[in-house]
């Protein structure tokens, strides 16, 4: 039985405000709240909320037969909390249905996987915590930023506890193979790969309202027919889309919501199911392995990482940012760590691309900047201020390792001091106890004076020195006597 696996991506960056070089060192708030508020509110109203509600209706009316998955960045989540909290409620309802799998992707929707494994692991962990704490869901399926994937990533994902990954069905990797199968990662065979079907996904995402497209208008039954007409051995069709396709990129007036809602009915007629990624992985056998030496992605014609790291500007910004990764991780400053995540979002680099033609149009369509040079200048100014703040906390002169050992020493010393303090407190208590008990003994000793005198004389004749010592310290004597019986008691 064929199955469709949907994945809806939800992401919006914290766009930067206009930040001039003379703001460096003075202004530590980098974000354009007005713009972000405006955009978030608009997209939530036109796209995210209606789309999510459509999915809810599809789940309810099909009695759980409709299943899909969602990938959300932590950055977007933070913005929803600020600007569109009602959407979070809808997401919670989706999570509660049990028919929607929330896959894990880097919290900051960043390119950390390309440069800093520790940062990548931390961000995947942050997302999992977010999903667990706010939605009560867990997952074993991962999805990297814009479906970026390469062989080096697979072992890392397995180590982090994932058994599946979503990525792009890039032609230059697949060659003659079809994306409509489950594959395993060549570098980590326990990791299963689900590949996006680019043609069918883009039919909805880009061509749905393109009147020059021969297949326009696209109806739900035609679409399901195409899927049903794929060869019988092809068991899975992965449709990965940005959720803003529904309502924002393709407006509601195009009928996109009706299209989506009609799919389960026609799929049922043709015997096509819907599955979550985990179900696909569990159910289907992989037909082979795929090796990806150089990173692939879902972006641009080239389907590689040139969309973010294709020119000099992007590379310099990227290097500068990650040069302080370790120091930021060691920092306890919450504001610094928050900015660190927000500055990593891949969109900032996307806006700096100088590509032309079709790719260029796609880049400039989403960019709040007029030119890629303006994007670079703005980002670098912000980064300069950020680096200055990191520098203030941990000066550059101190190397990372030296810093580490110093911090370790400080921590150790801290522990030692604590332990010593405890000992001191204990000893003080002991001393106090002794004093109290001595006074009690003293009081007892005064009640029986004769016994003490006879005890005294034989001692005096035997040891004249001792006598002298005793007369010297008459105050000590009664104490000593007091102690002897005590010592005897102790013995």
């Amino acid at each position: 039985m064929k199955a469709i696996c949907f994945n809806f991506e939800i992401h919006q960056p914290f766009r930067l405000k206009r930040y001039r070089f003379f703001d460096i060192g003075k202004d530590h708030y980098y974000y354009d709240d007005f713009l972000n508020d405006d955009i978030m509110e608009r997209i939530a109203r036109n796209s995210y909320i209606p789309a999510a509600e459509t999915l809810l209706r599809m789940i309810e009316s099909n009695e759980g037969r409709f299943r899909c998955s969602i990938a959300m960045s932590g950055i977007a989540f933070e913005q929803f909390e600020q600007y569109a909290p009602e959407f979070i409620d809808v997401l919670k309802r989706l999570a509660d249905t049990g028919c929607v799998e929330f896959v894990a992707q880097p919290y900051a929707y960043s390119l950390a996987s390309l440069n800093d494994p520790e940062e990548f692991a931390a961000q995947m962990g942050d997302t999992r915590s977010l999903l667990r704490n706010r939605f009560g869901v867990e997952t074993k399926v991962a999805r990297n930023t814009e479906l970026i994937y390469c062989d080096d990533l697979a072992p890392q994902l397995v180590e982090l506890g994932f058994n599946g990954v979503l990525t792009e069905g890039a032609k230059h990797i697949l060659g003659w193979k079809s994306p409509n199968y489950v594959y395993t990662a060549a570098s980590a065979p326990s990791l299963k790969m689900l590949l996006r079907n680019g043609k069918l996904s883009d039919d909805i995402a880009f061509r749905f309202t393109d009147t020059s497209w021969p297949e326009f208008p696209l109806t739900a039954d035609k679409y399901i027919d195409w899927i049903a007409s794929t060869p019988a051995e092809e068991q899975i069709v992965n449709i990965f889309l940005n959720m803003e396709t529904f309502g924002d990129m393709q407006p509601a007036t195009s009928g996109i919501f009706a299209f989506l809602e009609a799919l389960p009915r026609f799929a049922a007629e043709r015997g096509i199911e819907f599955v979550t990624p985990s179900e696909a992985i569990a159910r289907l056998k992989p037909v082979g392995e795929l090796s990806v030496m150089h990173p692939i992605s879902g972006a641009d014609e080239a389907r590689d990482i040139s969309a973010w790291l294709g020119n000099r500007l992007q590379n310099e910004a990227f290097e500068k940012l990650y040069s302080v990764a370790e120091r930021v991780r060691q920092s306890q400053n919450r504001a610094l760590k928050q900015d660190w995540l927000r500055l990593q979002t891949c969109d900032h680099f996307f806006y700096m691309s100088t590509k032309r033609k079709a790719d260029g149009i796609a880049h400039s369509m989403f960019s709040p900047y007029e030119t890629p040079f303006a994007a670079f200048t703005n980002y670098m100014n912000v980064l300069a201020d950020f680096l200055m703040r990191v520098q203030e906390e941990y000066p550059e002169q101190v190397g990372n390792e030296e810093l580490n050992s110093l911090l370790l020493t400080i921590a150790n010393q801290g522990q030692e001091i604590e332990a010593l303090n405890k000992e001191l407190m204990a000893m003080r208590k002991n001393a106090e106890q002794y004093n109290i008990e001595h006074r009690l003994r003293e009081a007892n000793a005064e009640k029986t004076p004769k016994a003490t005198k006879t005890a005294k004389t034989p001692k005096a004749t035997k040891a004249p020195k001792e006598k002298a010592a005793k007369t010297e310290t008459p105050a000590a004597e009664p104490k000593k006597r007091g102690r002897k019986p005590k010592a005897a008691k102790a013995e």
Partner: protein
Amino acid sequence: MKALMFGWEFPPHILGGLGTASYGLTRGMWECGDMDITFVIPKPYGDEDRSFARIIGTSQVPVAWRQVDREYVDARIGKLMSPELYFALRDHIYADFNYMRTNDLGCIEFSGRYPDNLLEEINNYSITAGVIARTLDFDIIHSHDWLTYPAGIHAKQVTGKPLVVHVHATEYDRSRGKPNPTVYGIERDGMTHADHIITVSNLTRQTVIDHYGIDPSKVTTVHNAVVPLDAELLAIPNPRQTKEKVVTFLGRITMQKGPEYFVEAAAKVLRNCSNVRFVMAGSGDMMDKMIMLAAERGIADRFHFPGFQKGKQVYEMLKASDVYIMPSVSEPFGISPLEAMQMGVPSIISKQSGCAEILTNVIKTDYWDIDAMADAIHSIISYPAMYKQLREDGLAEVARITWDKAGQKVIDIYNKVLGR
């Protein structure tokens, strides 16, 4: 196809962009093949490049009969005009201009520059144009800039051949909305008599349509280009000794070029950066005012005024620069940023200039946006990636902006006008 072009400046004796553009365009058209071009200028010096066009100087065109023999003519003007041509022109004098001030060869003296009696010179120019038009054989007339429009009109009236008028700049633009009525009149006259109008940018085209009342279908934009640098200029070594960055403005120091915005932006940059110097090269009516302004802002120690740069000096100045800036208030086209890009200097231009329409690897700001300008300057001098990106992509881009493309567009317009 035979074309008769009227111009005012020609390299190497140029005063502004008009000469550079005239040369480049004519050469570009010749490169497209099958073009026989005659270029008329007021005062040739003899050292002009005549490989692609026949150059005729109006200072050598007789308007009054003089009985002179071949040897005399050869001795007097042999280097500038062949005696055969002189005699042929003399045969076509159409009226007695002896009442005008003419020399021993019956020619009127021209300065070749922009003197106080400019309108008189323009009129004289059109008289000589009448003689030329009656003598030579050509298919089409092409007039560069308003100074030669009367000549073009006269030539058209004499021969009936079509006239194409090339608007390099408009009086409306130059005067910021308060044009000199005489000059405006000459410009409009030329445009209405022309069979087609070529403008150097869409900005200029819009001005012609909106403020001169011309039918849009009669106006076409052909963007200027730039002549590739010869190896000698590219090999100029960097004359600079210091590690400080240099930001350069190179052009006429006049209101239209927005020099005061440059000074203000420089002051802003110098408040936060110290290892940078600013250069305003060129001369003009606002030069003294700018020197005062720099002093007022307290940056006179880092702001330099080297004066007018001639020929090779321009390229040496560019080679020593890290940033080139052109904050023009209104620029019909602006070839100088292209020259800067050829020398590998990242450029900042105003959005109100014609070249902004075709360039992508430059930083564009509004001419009044001092903050953006200062930010852009800071970015280029502080972030090496920005410098390298603009430099390299700029070099590649400007290498594609060649005169033969513009030349071909002009030839297509000729064909359209001639009905071919």
